[in-house]
């Protein structure tokens, strides 16, 4: 029957989704006319639990909001508490934070690239990028002791130093990554079949992206030059970051932004390793946080916002986390109507969704 509407529940378990998200798609033939997300499958009440734990223990809790950007969650949280307690982080610790942040960004983007390739059935690219990602995981374990949740950020600095030898290993790893990216980049940028699936898919205008409050690569792919690293937290004061922007506003532009950001991250890691000053890695923080503060950090998926309210006890009064995927959900709802059902996985993956982040 042409023109009749049907509703398809897309997910929560779907081969392309690494995490449970349900989209209720209203279809007219093969065309999506309306999309409504239904979430709540991985809501863990972390914000409530954070009020019950001591503020020092919360670092390990917020890291578990999302594995892939765990270090940046801890960083945003620690920076917030440091602002409240007026702690100045030693220079070396600021640089170490940048190195681990950028390693996280690298492995996150490689993970995303694999998932995106998987969403349109390009398994070779998926394997290729996940193999390269292993190099980052290994260097992370060697420097921090954990592959994904590295737990190195603490209030007042970092828990571990990276020795000279390991710094050389870090440089070796990014060299290997750059070599691997040289294989991956032309595939994503120029391959006929990849472009067939990505160009024009899930396009939103710059105006829409701005109004809907999109963040991270989704906003930058629409030409909005927004990257919170520009404001100079941690060692981004010394290491200047220019936002990577594209103007297409579609899945292809978002892919380009992320690939180019990987090159940028490699550069930042090199700069940080070159310029890192010697010195302490942490200062003791005494007392309890009091007052309220908002701390922001640029994660691989966009800007994360921590609202922290302390009342002078070791427990926080409120910890609120707005993760980048939460902000990119509204743009996603605008991208989906009008697309073909077969393109839904590609569009959803193009915003790099992290459902665990979204629901906390």
């Amino acid at each position, binding site marked *: 029957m042409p023109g009749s509407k049907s509703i398809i529940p897309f997910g929560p378990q779907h081969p392309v989704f690494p995490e449970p998200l349900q989209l209720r798609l209203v279809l007219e033939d093969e065309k999506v006319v309306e999309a*409504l997300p239904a*979430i*709540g499958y991985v*809501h863990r*009440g972390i*914000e*409530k*639990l954070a009020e*019950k734990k001591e503020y020092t223990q919360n670092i390990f809790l917020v890291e578990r909001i999302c594995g892939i950007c765990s270090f940046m969650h801890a960083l945003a949280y620690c920076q917030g508490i440091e*602002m*409240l307690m007026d702690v100045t982080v030693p220079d070396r610790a600021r640089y170490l934070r940048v190195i681990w942040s950028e390693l996280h960004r690298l492995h996150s983007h490689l993970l995303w690239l694999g998932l995106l390739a998987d969403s349109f059935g390009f398994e070779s690219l998926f394997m290729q990028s996940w193999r390269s990602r292993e190099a980052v995981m290994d260097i992370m374990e060697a420097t921090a002791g954990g592959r994904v949740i590295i737990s190195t950020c603490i209030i007042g600095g970092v828990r571990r130093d990276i020795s000279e030898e390991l710094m050389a290993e870090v440089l070796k790893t990014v060299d290997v990554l750059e070599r691997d990216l040289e294989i991956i980049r032309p595939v994503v940028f120029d391959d006929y079949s990849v472009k067939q699936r990505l160009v024009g898919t899930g396009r939103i205008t710059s105006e829409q992206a*701005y*109004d*809907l*409050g999109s963040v991270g690569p989704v906003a930058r792919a629409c030409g909005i030059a927004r990257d*919170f690293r*520009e*404001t100079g937290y941690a060692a981004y004061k010394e290491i200047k970051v220019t936002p990577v922007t594209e103007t297409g506003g579609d899945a292809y532009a978002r892919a380009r932004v992320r690939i180019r950001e990987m090159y940028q991250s490699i550069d930042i890691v090199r700069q940080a390793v070159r310029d890192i000053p010697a010195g302490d890695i942490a200062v003791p923080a005494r007392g309890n946080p*009091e*007052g*309220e*503060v*908002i701390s922001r950090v640029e994660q691989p998926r966009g800007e994360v*916002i921590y*609202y922290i*309210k302390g009342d002078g006890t070791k427990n926080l*009064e*409120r910890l*609120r986390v*707005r993760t980048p995927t*939460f*902000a990119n*959900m*509204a743009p996603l709802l605008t991208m989906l109507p009008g697309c073909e059902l077969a393109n839904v996985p590609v569009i959803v993956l193009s915003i790099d969704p992290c459902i665990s982040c979204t*629901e906390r």
Partner: protein
Amino acid sequence: MSLMNTVAVSPDSLLQEVAGKYRQRYRFVTMTCTDIGDGYDILYHFDKDYELCNLRLYLKKGEELPSISSIFFAALLVENEIKDLFSIPIRDLVIDYGGRFLLTEDAPVAPMGREGCSRAIDIRLQGAPEEEDK
């Protein structure tokens, strides 16, 4: 330390203020709700060129909160979340999940409220008894 750029608003003047923010090309960031005993402390965060601007609203318990999702569409998700987690009635939502955005029918009521879920968490935390008193 307190929040910078924070303006207090009342539920009546909220929509007007938010519309003003929209005209000034602010982006909607998010909302924060805190249960402060007799009411809720609700913050609306807006951003423009990396500068945050907050609207602070005090809502008495039992009162209804007007939705800003007709001005900032992106607000509907966080408003639905607050409706679920604090059981605050919100009127004029563009898409109303009816309290089933994050929670299911058998979920606790207002888990993020002062009392909500506290007992459940306390019981779990007491799983490790403090031996120092012995």
